[in-house]
Every structure is written in structure tokens, then in C-alpha cells.
């Protein structure tokens, strides 16, 4: 009797972690796994919301339409520029910020709360503020550039071919620096003091310390942060949607903002799903290559 209840208890204990994780797991299945499977299915279907009588299997039709879409090259190119420029600048500025913050000074906590503020603001609002600042009529940026003499008449930055994506990238950089700053700062603070002191005793200069100790030590964080940020920026469409809505004539869309355009305006769920599946594949391939190329598994030991 006694021993049976003991094994029963042990069995219960073995089940505990699964029970604890069950709610989260069910949610992940319903809200991540199911949508992905459904999107795959839809991408092979004719499915336009306004034509409910013409829904059915379409084979590769959506993918063919996608690959022959005259906008596609432009949009892929924009996606690349968008990711490389944004993440590159965020990384650089975030790194500088984290290095500056890594030594104690008075009022540091308040300072951090200010510079990390953009992280907590909605992309919608950030898009609106920057749209207003870059506006042709009474916009702050035009005003300042006119004052310095760099312009002699106001420019409609957000309505110019090949230019309109630049203000959006600027807004996105502004938005993302805090995240990089936070991650890198946390990593910097995990470097053991003894290591830096040993370097000081050996007479290592600032640059030497940065490249021989700091960067190798925090490399795993840098890799993961870049990986996560690239995915996040690649999938991000709010600022483009708010500031240019892809305009003029589709010249500033990236993949997700173009997908949202397909969902919202043409309501072509088949093609939108094919675009979504394409984004997923690009990200999966990128992740595997990135982790291989950076030798993530071997990083972090010096």
C-alpha cells in the first residue's frame, strides 16, 4: 500500500513538468503551428475574399503569379536594403551606446530609462511622428535643412521614387537602437572584472581590449541579437505601412508590407499566403546559414 502510493507519487512528479507546460504548448500549437499549416494550404488555393464562389485548389498558380509579379524584384531588393541598413546601423549605434553606459555615472538609471524609451512606443505612433517630421509642408526636417541651406525648397521625401524608403529606415533605426543597446549592455556587464584587470596589468590598450577580450567574450550575445533582430526587422511592416504605405507606386514596399497590401486591398488570401510562405522559407534558410557561418556552437570560449 505504502510503496504503491510512493511510485504513484513519483509518477506524478515525472508528469509535473509536462502538466506545467501544457497550457503554453496547446497555445503554441493553436496559434503558431496551425496558422503556419493553414497558410501552406491556402497558398495552394484560389481564395479571394470577394469571390466566395470561386474557392478551390489552384496548384502552384499563386507561386507562379508571385514569381512573375513585376514588383517582386524591387520588393526583394527593398527587403534586403531594409534589413541590412537598419540592422547594421542599429548594431553600430547600440554598441556605442552600450559601451558608453557600461561604466557607472550619476543618474544612470534615469538616463537609461530615457534612451531606451523608443522600445516601448508603438510602431504606429513612431511612424506617425516621423511622417510628420519628414512632411513636405511644415515638416521639421525640411525646416532644418532649409535653415542650414542644404535645401532651397521643401522636398516631399516620402513621395519620391527611390527616396521614400530612407526616412522609414531612419525611423526604424531610431526605433531599434535601444534593443541592441539593452542586449549588448547586459552582455558587457557579464564580463568578469578579473579579465579586464588582467588585461590592464598586461598593459593592453583600449582598442586592444575591445577586440581581444570584449568582442570575443560577448560574441554569442552579438550573434543571437543580430539573428533575432534580422528576423524581426525582416518581418516588420508597420513603419512602411504608416509612413509611405509602399508608395510611390510600390517603390518602398518590403515583403511583409506588400503582403499586408495584398490582404487588405485585393483580399487575395491565396497569394498573400504564398508570400507569407516565401517569407518563412527565406527566414528558415537564413537562420540555418547564419548559425553555420558564425559557428555559433563554437563561439564564446576564449
Amino acid at each position, binding site marked *: 500500500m505504502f510503496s504503491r502510493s510512493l511510485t504513484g507519487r513519483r509518477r506524478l512528479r515525472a508528469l509535473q*513538468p509536462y502538466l*506545467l*507546460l501544457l*497550457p*503554453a504548448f496547446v*497555445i*503554441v500549437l*493553436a*496559434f*503558431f503551428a*496551425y*496558422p503556419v499549416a493553414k*497558410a501552406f494550404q*491556402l497558398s495552394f488555393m484560389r481564395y479571394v475574399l470577394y469571390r466566395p464562389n470561386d474557392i478551390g485548389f489552384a496548384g502552384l498558380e499563386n507561386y507562379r503569379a508571385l514569381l512573375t509579379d513585376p514588383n517582386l524584384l524591387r520588393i526583394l531588393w527593398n527587403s534586403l536594403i531594409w534589413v541590412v541598413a537598419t540592422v547594421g546601423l542599429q548594431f553600430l549605434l547600440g554598441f556605442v551606446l552600450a559601451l*558608453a*553606459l557600461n561604466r557607472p555615472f550619476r543618474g544612470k*538609471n534615469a*538616463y537609461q530609462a*530615457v*534612451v*531606451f*524609451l523608443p*522600445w*516601448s*512606443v*508603438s*510602431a504606429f*505612433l513612431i511612424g*506617425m*511622428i*516621423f511622417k*510628420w517630421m519628414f512632411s513636405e*509642408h*511644415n515638416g*521639421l526636417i525640411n525646416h532644418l535643412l532649409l535653415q542650414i541651406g542644404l535645401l532651397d525648397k521643401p522636398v516631399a521625401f516620402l513621395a519620391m521614387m527611390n527616396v521614400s524608403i530612407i526616412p522609414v529606415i531612419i525611423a526604424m533605426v531610431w526605433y531599434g*537602437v535601444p*534593443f541592441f543597446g*539593452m*542586449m549588448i*549592455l*547586459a*552582455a558587457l556587464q557579464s564580463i568578469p572584472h578579473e579579465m579586464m584587470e588582467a588585461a590592464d596589468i598586461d598593459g593592453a590598450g583600449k582598442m586592444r581590449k575591445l577586440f581581444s577580450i570584449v568582442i570575443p567574450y560577448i560574441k*554569442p550575445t552579438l550573434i543571437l541579437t543580430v539573428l*533575432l533582430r534580422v*528576423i524581426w526587422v525582416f*518581418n516588420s511592416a*508597420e513603419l512602411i505601412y*504608416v509612413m509611405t504605405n509602399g508608395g510611390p507606386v510600390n517603390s518602398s514596399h518590403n*515583403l*511583409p508590407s506588400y*503582403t*499586408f497590401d495584398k*490582404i*487588405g486591398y485585393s483580399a487575395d488570401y491565396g497569394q498573400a*499566403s504564398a508570400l507569407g*510562405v516565401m*517569407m*518563412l522559407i527565406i*527566414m528558415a534558410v537564413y*537562420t540555418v546559414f547564419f548559425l553555420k557561418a558564425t559557428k555559433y556552437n563554437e563561439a564564446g570560449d576564449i
Partner: protein
Amino acid sequence: MRLFRHSGSSFIRFVTLALFPAGTLLPFYWMLVTSLKSRKEIYGDTLTIWPKQLTWANYATTFQNSNFPQYFANSALVSIVTALLVIVVSILGGYGLARYRFRGKGLIMLVFLSTQMIPVMVMLIPLFMMFGELKLLDTLAALIITYTAINIPFCLIMMSGFFQRIPYVLEEAAMIDGCGRFRTVVQIVLPVMLPGIVATFVFAFTAAWNDLFFGVMFANSDKVKTVPVGLNSFIQKFDINWGEMSAAGILSLIPVVFMFGFVQRYIVAGLSQGAVKG
């Protein structure tokens, strides 16, 4: 004068440290100034860096002649309920991940982490159809369920990081004293973790408060629109009134900025736990 007695490198550091908040605050400043200007001044011939005449008119209109109060209340309700649900599920799962060794643990971590890769654009249509079948479209419930779900993987990993920081001895000691596991966690571990729990709350709250696309997709009528969704649908229909838009923007910033100021330190810790150790 003191500045110049420092070495060159600390001067550079000083300039660097000054530039970041300046760059960060400029857009906020511009929004604030715009919200305090009269319509005439905003669209006048000369642009003013500080309002010639301060006016609360934009705030008054935002409160009285718009749906903003309704949007604000919706955002508050949705975000608070979302954050509470996220915390409950994350505490359960986070504890499971942090304190047990079991088969499939690595796989579960991998699944949770890979959800971070899935584009919102892939989820929008299937979830729209799912809520359509459940007759939940155009309800606050659809928003709450969605925001809870999409924030769980990250918050759970973050929470498990907070659990790992607390020495297990603390729990063992209580359990040896005859305290059950559940009671031990609730009475001893959770109070110690309070900063982490608050940080997770703010993280989930902010994510729900700031979402745009799910809201645009699921919320149609004014009585369920959140702040960004409501303002967005407004500017789709009418020309943007920058004064009122700025006033609404400032008002919508207040809750998140207020909370963020307090817990920013813990969020930094949580983010790095969640992403680095995860």
C-alpha cells in the same frame, strides 16, 4: 571648465552620452510641441520650435469630440487582461522549464524559440478565419486571445530565466520544513521574483498596447478598436490633423512610458535572460 581637464577620451564619451538622449527625445519633443499648438500655428507660414501660444485645444477635442476615450479604455482592458494571462501561463511553464529535467525539454525550447521566426503576416489570415468560425471577430476577446498567445513563448522563456536566478536551496529548505511545493513556490519563490514578474507584465502589456496589424484585421467597429487601430482607421478616412494626432499620441504614451520608466532595469535583465540563456 572641468570638462577640459579630463582626457580626450572622456570628452568623447561625454559627447556620446549627450547625443543619444538628444536624438531619442527629438521626435517626442516635436510631438509634444505640435500637440500644444493651435491649428493656425501648425499650418502657418513660419514654423515655430516652441508654440507662440500654448493651447490645450487639441487635447480637449481628442477627449470630447472623438472616440479616443473608448479606444483608450479598450486598449487598457485588452492589455491588462493579456498581461495577466501571459503571467499565469508563463509562471507555470517557466517553472517547469527551470526546475525539472525531462525528456523533450530541448525540443520544447526549440519549438518556443522558433515561434519567434513566424511572420505576423503568415498568422493574420488563418487566425482571421479561425475567429470568424468561432464568431469572435470584432470582439475584444479575439484581441486578448491573440496577444496572449503570441507573447507566451518569449515571456515563458524569460520567466524561466528569472526562476533559474533563484537558488533552488531556498525551495528545498522550505520543503524540508514540510511546506508543499505549490505553497513553497507561491509563498517563497514568487515574492522574491516580483521584479521579474512585473517586468514580464510590462513586456506583455506593452506588446498588446502597441499592436497594429492584428487589431486592424480583427477589430472593425469603434467599440472594440484599440488606440493605434482607431487612430489608423481615422487617418484612412480623413486628412491627418497633426495637432489632434499628436495630442492623442502623447496621451497614448503615458501608460507605457510611466510603467517602462520603473521597470526598465528588470526588462533589460529579462530580455537578456530570455534571449541569451534561452
